[in-house]
């Protein structure tokens, strides 16, 4: 599912409500995910929500905090208290999934922007979330790296919710929401909903 809307429309805030990084000012957010215990309110159970919802931000440099890709993915797995062999195996699998297995031990500084964003995605996917949320994951990337990230996201086996200004990426989703001034003003299939969005953006 894609969220589109103008800058400041509330897309990021809506996404942040999904893992309790933000709280709704009215109403409730309810998550019903595989691996969850029925409907979960992130505002009431933020730790549980964050264990189920993987969140990828726009800027990979704020997300990658360890010196190498392998160490950064391993950091995500520390709270699971896995045996070292299993942890190393999951790190390798996560990096291989995003095409970074060969670069597991290179300094993060040596990765391109797209590779760092793929690393951020790998670090999130390694924990096995029930939902993957991405907040404008390709805004800072060039066309080639955007294609890499998009191809990776399309292969993810869990539900994906992403905010984006990339209308091609939005068009590839099954459902699109248009957010404007903190409200969802359109919700439906990509083609008609994106047409509504374009009309909204082109209005004087």
């Amino acid at each position: 599912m894609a969220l589109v809307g103008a800058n400041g429309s509330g897309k990021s805030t809506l996404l942040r409500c999904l893992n309790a990084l933000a709280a709704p000012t009215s109403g409730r957010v309810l998550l019903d995910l595989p691996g969850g215990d029925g409907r979960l309110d992130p505002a009431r159970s933020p730790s549980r929500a964050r264990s189920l919802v993987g969140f990828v931000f726009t800027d990979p440099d704020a997300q990658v905090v360890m010196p190498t890709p392998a160490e950064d993915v391993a950091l995500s797995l520390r709270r699971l208290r896995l045996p070292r062999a299993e942890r190393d195996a999951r790190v390798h699998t996560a990096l291989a999934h995003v095409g970074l297995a060969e670069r597991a031990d290179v300094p993060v500084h040596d990765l391109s922007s797209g590779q760092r964003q793929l690393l951020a995605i790998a670090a999130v996917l390694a924990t096995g979330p029930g939902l993957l949320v991405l907040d404008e994951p390709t805004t800072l990337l060039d066309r080639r790296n955007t294609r890499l990230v998009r191809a990776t996201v399309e292969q993810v086996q869990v539900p994906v919710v992403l905010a984006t200004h990339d209308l091609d990426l939005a068009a590839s989703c099954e459902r699109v929401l248009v957010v404007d001034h903190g409200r969802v003003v359109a919700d439906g299939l990509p083609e008609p909903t994106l047409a509504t969005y374009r009309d909204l953006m082109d209005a004087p």
Partner: protein
Amino acid sequence: MRPGTKLAVVAVAALVVVGARTTGPLGALALVPGGVVLLAALAGHTRVGTPAAVMAGMLRRLALPLLVLAAYQTLSRGPVQGLEVLLDLSGLVLLAGLVTVTTPMDRMLDTMAAAVTPLRRVPGLRAHLHPDRVALTFALALRSVDVLWDVALQARDAARARGRGRDVRALVTPTVIRAVAHARATGDALAARGLVD
């Protein structure tokens, strides 16, 4: 060598070089410990194959405060004390750098968490002390040196592009603002990963 042993070596080296003062009874002989630490660090880096550019980078990031301190000591106490500051701090920075380049970060985190865990027996600390978070803070502190350096370089380039390359405020203000913004974004990302609240 285990990470805990490496950290203990750095701690002991720091105590020795700080304890030996040229203003004390040893006089100029107190330069020897700092010199030994510096040479040992250089030898260690050479042995493990640390590129010269990486070693230079370790010192370059701290060059300004290092030189300011050395200049202050030279002017206020004399050239021997200025040299003492340079030797001591350069040696310790390179020695600490040797630990980080030879120790995988997850092993370092395990060691830091294990070192802090006994403190949970102190009354009142158990509920507030989280060893994994203390260890993560240590890792973030190490990373922050490179991050702040990059932010400062970008602020300098932006100031120069605006013709204000010599304006200290044009350099410091955006550096501080961007550093705080980066810290907040990193906090959000760590919270999203379930590593902090």
